């Protein structure tokens, strides 16, 4: 036995027995982004026997602030490949499987069936519900982590008789709950949440301590308050026969945004559709923009020219997510103003002669 895991083996409450369980275990990590990076680094360093990495995304320069494994030289490369290379150098004694594709209804059951535990380190609702449903079908526990701004959530679902993700959030929101691309995230926060996910995965595998099952951990990193909310299991969510053929709602990779600077330069190329209320619109709006409040959009689609790209705007790029879903199928190209009009006003200004 080599000394690599000496400090695990000599750790009271862990020891040889738990280390052997780690080395005999397999974990599939879905997503190699802000959450996946710390999860993969720690599980690999700690000696999990077989690690699967699922991600088809490539490294973007905007990932670097919160995914510190990636370097500037990695921009444009496949994340799963870059991570796998790092993990091989970090630990040559365990196995790595690389899947440079997204988890889909077609491949989820086959991939997940080959692992003991799944870590949901994805960045979109569609994948989260897919991971849940596949894990319920296959009887696999999964470690959930999610972020919003300065906040994070962690729990372990489908563990023994515990609740599933659908016991907490039964239905998928239709896109209004913004994802990590349209909203900001403080670089270190996914590191904190991902590390907690790695810890929970270790507890699930080794049986040490208490698994965060039946409890949602909520962290507000600004006030540094931690809340634990109890989640009850609902029998109807524990039995799923088959995956849905489609998991709706686009994730980070599908949302298209336009920066305020670009819109200010080329506003005439777009139908600038302001989905705020009439009162908000009257107070200030981008010159030449069309106002249809979000609540009325469904019924007033015919007012939106279908042959021109649409740029949706609202105050903080929250309502535009819902509006984009409504416009699907009506307009071929739909964009959202990055950060909303608040961002536009701070970047471009509110010059009344230009924009009113």
């Amino acid at each position, binding site marked *: 036995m080599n000394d690599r895991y000496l400090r695990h083996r000599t750790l009271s409450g862990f020891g040889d027995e738990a280390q052997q369980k780690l080395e005999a275990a397999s974990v599939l990590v879905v997503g190699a982004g802000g959450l996946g990076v710390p999860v993969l680094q720690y599980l690999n360093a700690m000696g999990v026997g077989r690690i699967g990495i699922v991600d088809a995304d490539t490294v973007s320069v905007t990932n670097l602030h919160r995914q510190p494994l990636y370097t500037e030289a990695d921009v444009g490369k496949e994340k799963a490949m870059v991570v796998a290379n790092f993990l091989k150098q970090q630990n040559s004694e365990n196995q790595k499987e690389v899947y440079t594709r997204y988890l889909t209804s077609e491949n989820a059951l086959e991939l997940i069936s080959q692992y003991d535990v799944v870590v949901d380190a994805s*960045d*979109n609702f569609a994948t989260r519900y897919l991971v849940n449903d596949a894990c319920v079908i296959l009887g696999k526990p999964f470690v959930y982590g*999610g972020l919003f701004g300065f906040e994070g959530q962690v729990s372990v679902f489908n563990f023994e008789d515990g609740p599933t993700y659908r016991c907490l959030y039964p239905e*998928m929101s239709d896109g209004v709950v913004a994802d990590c691309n349209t909203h900001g995230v403080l670089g270190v926060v996914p590191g904190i949440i991902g590390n907690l996910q790695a810890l929970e995965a270790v507890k699930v595998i080794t049986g040490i301590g208490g698994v965060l099952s039946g409890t949602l951990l909520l962290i507000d990193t600004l006030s540094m308050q931690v*809340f634990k*909310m109890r*989640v009850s299991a609902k029998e109807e969510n524990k039995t799923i026969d088959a995956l849905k053929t489609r998991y709706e709602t686009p994730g980070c990779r599908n949302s298209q945004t336009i920066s305020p600077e670009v819109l200010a330069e080329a506003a005439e190329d777009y139908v600038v559709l302001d989905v705020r209320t009439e009162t908000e619109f009257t107070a200030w709006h981008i010159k030449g923009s069309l106002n249809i409040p*979000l609540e009325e959009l469904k019924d007033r689609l015919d007012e939106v020219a279908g042959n021109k790209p649409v740029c949706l705007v609202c105050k*903080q790029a929250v309502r535009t*997510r819902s509006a984009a879903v409504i416009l699907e199928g009506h307009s071929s190209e739909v964009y959202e103003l990055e950060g909303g009009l608040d961002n536009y006003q701070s970047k471009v200004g509110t010059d009344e002669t230009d924009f009113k």
Partner: protein
Amino acid sequence: MSEILLFGVTREIIGSATLKLSEAEYPKNVEELRELLLVRYPELKAIASLKVAVNNDFAEDHTVIRPTDEVALIPPVSGG
């Protein structure tokens, strides 16, 4: 109950980290709280699985809310 804790996108929609209700507005159960909030902040409607926790337990619509209870509004989060 005097201060409802807000998480995730509900903070942006409501515009603060907590929401104060006057005593006259106190709802008697979760369903009444939802109705009150949706009238005041229609954008919350788009969150399909907006959860309410009462005293650190995720609650159902029929869960009774007493004036001394701790109430939190918890939406799903997708970021990663």
